[in-house]
């Protein structure tokens, strides 16, 4: 019996030792040998990666007045798992009750976000303080729910600068699929969609920061010190060439008309003011715009989204007469004082009569008077004296027929037709020299943008010294220095005199001012779809040009009565403004433009 007990005791103790050795051995394996693995698991448990959006650079006008900055707003967000097959989880269920959100509608809205691949669902965008504190106080009952602050773009002059500053929007799947080099973008990020916001995207956008935060089991941030893996690099600020006061003046000068006005510094190419009307509030685009509002904007027949400054193309009308004159003068076909056949209200060509705008006729005119009075009959004759390609070449010398701005990728090129173009359009024998009659007076197939017309005018004023127009001052894009004009300086001087006289005594009288001289030209862009569009371009002062202005009013009829006074009003403001002193510190000195001494 004792023997038996002894054996059992031995076996029992053996089992005891073996079992405890297994436990200890396993503990040693886990806690010592695999310690690193489990420590990493514990870190993975409590460390959550957060991406912190870098603030986007601000946009200012040329003098540093802010026109676009960032507001911080807070969203109440849920993890994607808060909704499983349209069935709300516990936390979401609670919030629906507390905030008394419309149940079905909210669930559908979140479902849409989930389908778009968003990792966190925004339950309440731009939440009120009351709701934010409600969530923060009861975070224990709301696992996974977070209050996330997010910068929102704010446009301080949303309507005034909508077409130039543009706007930002959310990165969509389409952006990720189509745009290269957007590897660091994620769905829902802000990205410039239009205007300077789009053109300066790289500059304005900083580098998002990545930090590790410690969270507890209910996914609440509890760590005091985040660990930054990537520091935030804020985006850089950018400055436009636009001057806010001058922009406002242009806006007021155009008023409620549909059209566009551009004013540029002829020496630097800086666009000082550029308005496209009607406009829209770009702030609407950064928040989720309601479908009603969107439809209203998109279906507006006046097309508020249409950037008329660079996207709209019109026939230049009589403004083009400067180009025609310079072309024939350059070819030596007609002199500066040449008198051609008198104007009897039109010209017979082939079996068709081409009318002068003045049906009663201008009578006998010299070249200068033909320009001052904008006599079509005279210009028909000038046109017939050349080849279509010679006229097109003159136009291209000014930069017409191709995009000229710095920041608008969707800018229209316009159209300067030449013989290959007509061959393509109508076939090699499908057109006649008759097109020259229309081309000579800027009608027909010629198309230009308002910005191109401002540039044309500026280059006439500076004998071609004006660089391509710039909307952005900082960061400076490479200046596109113009090719020298192929025209003789005396011909250009003649052209400037003729334009001065046009305002002094001719069709541009409505822009005439008492305190300074204006050289300009009216135009009427024929519109087969309705009332003609009214053009007016000018530069001032005539003897020492500082600024060039182009104005077009859609369906306003004749340029002399409608568009010219708008340019006049803006110029009046310009010469009376403080801005002029800032932009052109010593107006007298600026006279000494290279190439101007000869005149």
């Amino acid at each position, binding site marked *: 019996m004792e023997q*038996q007990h002894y054996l059992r005791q031995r076996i029992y*103790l053996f089992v005891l030792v073996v079992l405890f050795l297994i*436990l200890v051995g396993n503990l040693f394996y886990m*806690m010592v040998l695999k*310690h690193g693995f*489990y420590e990493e698991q514990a870190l993975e448990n409590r460390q959550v990666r957060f991406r912190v959006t870098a603030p986007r650079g601000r946009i200012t006008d040329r003098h540093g007045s802010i026109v676009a900055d960032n507001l911080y707003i807070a969203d109440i967000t849920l993890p994607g798992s808060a909704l499983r097959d349209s069935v709300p989880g516990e936390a979401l269920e609670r919030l629906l009750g507390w905030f008394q959100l419309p149940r079905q509608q909210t669930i559908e809205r979140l479902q849409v976000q989930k389908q778009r691949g968003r990792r966190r669902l925004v339950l309440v965008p731009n939440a009120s303080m009351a709701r934010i504190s409600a969530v923060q106080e009861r975070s*224990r009952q709301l696992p996974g729910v977070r209050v996330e602050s997010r910068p929102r773009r704010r446009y301080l002059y949303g309507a005034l600068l909508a077409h130039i500053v543009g706007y930002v929007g959310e990165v969509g799947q389409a952006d990720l699929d189509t745009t290269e080099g957007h590897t660091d973008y994620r769905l829902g990020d802000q990205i410039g969609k239009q205007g300077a916001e789009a053109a300066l995207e790289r500059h304005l956008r900083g580098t998002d920061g990545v930090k590790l935060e410690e969270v507890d*089991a209910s996914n609440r941030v*509890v*760590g005091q010190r985040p660990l930054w893996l990537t520091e935030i690099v804020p985006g850089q600020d950018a400055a436009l060439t636009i001057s806010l006061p001058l922009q406002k003046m242009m806006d007021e000068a155009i008023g409620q008309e549909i059209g566009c006005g551009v004013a540029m510094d002829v020496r630097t190419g800086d666009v000082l003011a550029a308005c496209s009307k009607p406009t829209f509030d770009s702030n609407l685009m950064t928040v989720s715009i309601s479908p009603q509002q969107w439809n209203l904007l998109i279906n507006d027949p006046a097309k508020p989204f249409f950037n008329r400054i660079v996207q709209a193309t019109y026939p230049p009308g009589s403004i083009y007469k400067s180009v025609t004159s310079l072309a024939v003068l350059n070819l030596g076909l007609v002199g500066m004082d040449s008198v051609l056949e008198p104007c009897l209200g039109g010209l017979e060509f082939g079996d068709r009569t081409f009318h002068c705008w003045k049906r009663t006729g201008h009578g006998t005119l010299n070249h200068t008077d033909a320009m001052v009075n904008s006599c079509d009959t005279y210009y028909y004759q000038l046109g017939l004296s050349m080849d279509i390609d010679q006229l097109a070449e003159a136009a291209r010398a000014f930069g017409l027929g191709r995009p000229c701005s710095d920041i608008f990728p969707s800018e229209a090129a316009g159209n300067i037709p030449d013989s290959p173009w007509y061959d393509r359009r109508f076939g090699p024998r499908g057109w006649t020299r008759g097109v020259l009659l229309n081309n000579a007076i800027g009608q027909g197939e010629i198309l230009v943008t308002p910005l191109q017309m401002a540039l044309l005018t500026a280059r006439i004023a500076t004998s071609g010294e004006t660089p391509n127009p710039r909307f952005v001052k900082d960061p400076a894009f490479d200046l596109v220095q113009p090719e020298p004009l192929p025209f003789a300086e005396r011909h250009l001087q003649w052209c400037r005199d003729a334009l001065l006289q046009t305002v002094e005594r001719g069709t541009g009288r409505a822009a005439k001012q008492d305190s300074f001289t204006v050289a300009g030209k009216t135009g009427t862009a024929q519109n087969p779809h309705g009332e003609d569009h009214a053009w007016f371009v000018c530069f001032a002062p005539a003897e020492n040009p500082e600024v060039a202005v182009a104005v077009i009013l859609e369906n306003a009829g004749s340029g002399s009565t409608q568009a010219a006074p708008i340019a006049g009003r803006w110029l009046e403001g310009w010469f009376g403004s403080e801005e002029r002193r800032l932009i052109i510190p010593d107006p007298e000195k600026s006279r000494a433009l290279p190439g101007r001494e000869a005149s």
Partner: protein
Amino acid sequence: MKNFSLLPQGDKIIFLAWVLLCLTSLAMLWSVTEPIQGPYEKLDPGVSKGVFWRQVVWMGVSYLGLLVAASVRMRYLENIVWPAFLFSLGLLLLTLLFGPKIAGSQRWLALGPFRMQPSELAKVTYILMMGHLLGGTVDGGRKLMVTIGSLALTLLPMMLVLREPDLGTSLVFLAVWVGLVFWYGVPGLLLLGAGSAAISAVFSFYSETVASSPWPWAIYLLLLLGVLYLSRLSILVSVVLLAANILTGIGIPFFWDRLKGYQQERILTFFDPTRDAFGAGYQAIQSKVAIGTGGLFGTHYLQGTQKGLAFLPERHTDFIFSVVGEELGFFGSLFLLALFFIMLWQGVHHAAAVRRPFARFVAIGVVTYFLFHVVTNVSITTGLLPVTGLPLPLVSYGGSNLLTSSILVGLLLNVSSRTFHD
């Protein structure tokens, strides 16, 4: 009762182990109810300080229980085993009939503000009952009858507890029975039968759940048949062995179907914790991470992140060992296990040394009870066994289990004090 004093008589080493285990329990429960220390905002620990203070009070009560159990006369205890056993069976029955349903199970009896788990009391009376039954002097021929009778008396409380349902506790009865019967002396053939039946159960389970085909089990049976043929056992024994294997094999799918969904899930998840990383597998994964994080010296007291940031579930009850592992490290865990080990080591020696068979089997029962609880609980927290609700005796929070375990330690002390007398 003789020489009642404030210090129990008996083995001082066992008593010291009890004291140190209780102090460890209090230290860990304090940690669990404190906000985490470190670079964190002041956090709600998620387990109220009341847990700590209630355990302090229970510890006082349990000490009284230990004193009484250590000093009461063994003879007196043996006289009341039947009424005590029947009384606790009655309480188990009452629990099933009138116990409040808490989280889907009926485990408690409420008496005013006082709540107790009758299954804990049943462990004490069951061990005493077994001591009486197996301690009775019988000749060799009737040993098998006693063994079978003891199994029947084991199944009674086991089934009642399983109905609550409380799988972990019901298995305690079976485990204690195995330990006792082993000491009692089991015939070798019975051991062979039980062993092969257990293997048959494992194969059957594998066929049922993982393979979804009867072939693995069938192949095992064919192999067994071959072994039985070659081993030249008598026809009768071979048939009985084969029958035992077939019965358990068929019984497993039946038993499996009877398991609750969450129990099935736990067992399946045990074999593959990632199967449900946020559900049943979550506890197992988080517990392993907590223990593994501890390293040699632990993350230091009050600084465990798995505990403090609430990743570890049930950290004051069934998974308190994970907190020990995380905060006190390998050496801390080793110290805790050593306390249990020394207590059981001493217990086995006293059981072997005591003359009175009743006392011997009570001591073996107590040792097996602790051995099963500690090994199972630590195995669950380290992922060696599937998750089943089973506290770490003397350390986990919970008054009923603390009192029961202390009374059992008291009985062990009682036995040790009688080792060379009586």
